[in-house]
């Protein structure tokens, strides 16, 4: 994913729509995002991001929290998370 994804409003509250859920599967060896007739494997970082998309936390708070938790530059986290969430939203896996 490129860094050109459209910005997400700081006060947006991203959440998984009905019919999409994150799950840990021992047999599949990790986190998976289940969606209509599709299954996406989520690496540890992606899972950490998606877990925070509860519909309660704002986008700004999610980015702050991730930057703090992973001790990473906020600007970099903002770009990466924006790109990932935009990608998920395009696939109808996330509501912004």
């Amino acid at each position, binding site marked *: 994913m490129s860094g050109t994804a459209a910005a997400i409003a700081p006060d947006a509250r991203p959440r998984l729509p009905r019919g999409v*859920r994150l799950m840990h599967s021992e047999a*599949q060896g990790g986190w998976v995002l289940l969606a209509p007739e*599709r299954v996406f*494997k*989520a690496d540890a970082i992606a899972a950490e991001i998606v877990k925070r998309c509860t519909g309660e936390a704002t986008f700004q708070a999610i980015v702050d929290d991730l930057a703090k938790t992973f001790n990473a530059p906020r600007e970099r986290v903002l770009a990466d998370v924006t790109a990932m969430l935009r*990608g998920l939203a395009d696939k*109808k896996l996330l509501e912004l």
Partner: protein
Amino acid sequence: MAETGQAPLFTPLGLLAELTHRCPLGCPYCSNPLALDPRDSELDTATWERVFSEAAALGVLQVHLSGGEPGARRDLVEITAAAHSAELYTNLITSAVGISAQTLDRLAAAGLDHVQISIQDSERGSADRIAGYDGAFARKRALAGEVVRLKIPLTVNVVVHRANIDRIGDMVALALTLGANRIEIAHVQYYGWALRNRAALMPNAAQVARAVETVDELRRRHRGEIVIDAVVPDYYARLPKPCVGGWGRRSLNVTPAGRVLPCHAAESIPGLEFWSVGQHSLADIWNHSPAFNAFRGTAWMQEPCRSCARRDIDFGGCRCQAFALTGDARATDPVCHLAPRHDDVVALAAVQADEPYAYRRM
């Protein structure tokens, strides 16, 4: 995040539960086999419950409740609840004929995650003619409305062929009107009933080329609005499809009577030994049944597959198609441009006829 391609050690992701072969519609491309399982052979509720719990233990994440028309089962709500209790993602694949608004309410309460409704065309008359059922189109629209009202995500499935291929744009517009999040545009695959109706279903090359362009353009136009998934038209392809993600690698199919197949058409290949959930656990069948092991890996391949750089990408294509078109299930899928029999596919695609359908009937 990447869509899962190859699961290590062949852990299945999805289970297609063909709850019944009964169906009010008669679509001439039905994916059910020509020899349909009769009602009195169907698995009971308790057996499906066991199958779902064994499937979840095996690693299966999603169950596709299909048929025939799953609404023909009186215990559909109990079956759905059992799949949900096993923590499986539940997907109802329905013609919409036979599912009432009340049943849908109960299915939603039982934990149904997603609904896929098939639509035969964007025009009522043509749609009902293809389905072989007067009034089907109106009932599909009505049930789609109920699904959206309950806020369950909706996929519209459209099977594309010569009678409707010129209306892909209208069908996507219809899906948007209905409130679908996703549309599946699937060109007919020629097995079973569709093989029997091949000439009547086969589009011409110009139609196929336009269809591919249309889908690309619609995807760009509706990005973020609706997901458009398209299945390529087999006979016009240069490379074969990695059928079911590879034989015995990602999915399994349980027939109404309980036979477990690597794909829904697998019984068209003679000589394979299928095991049944009545005699074996699902894990035993997945790991040890002769049918599942018949085309796993690459040892069974012939040339040009055996030394091909794509052998772990498309797995030699589809075994059922290889058998249907060459008489040898180990042959390279003749859809592949490298297959010795590829010219046969090109010739067959040119056989097109506006003749009456042989409708699927029990």
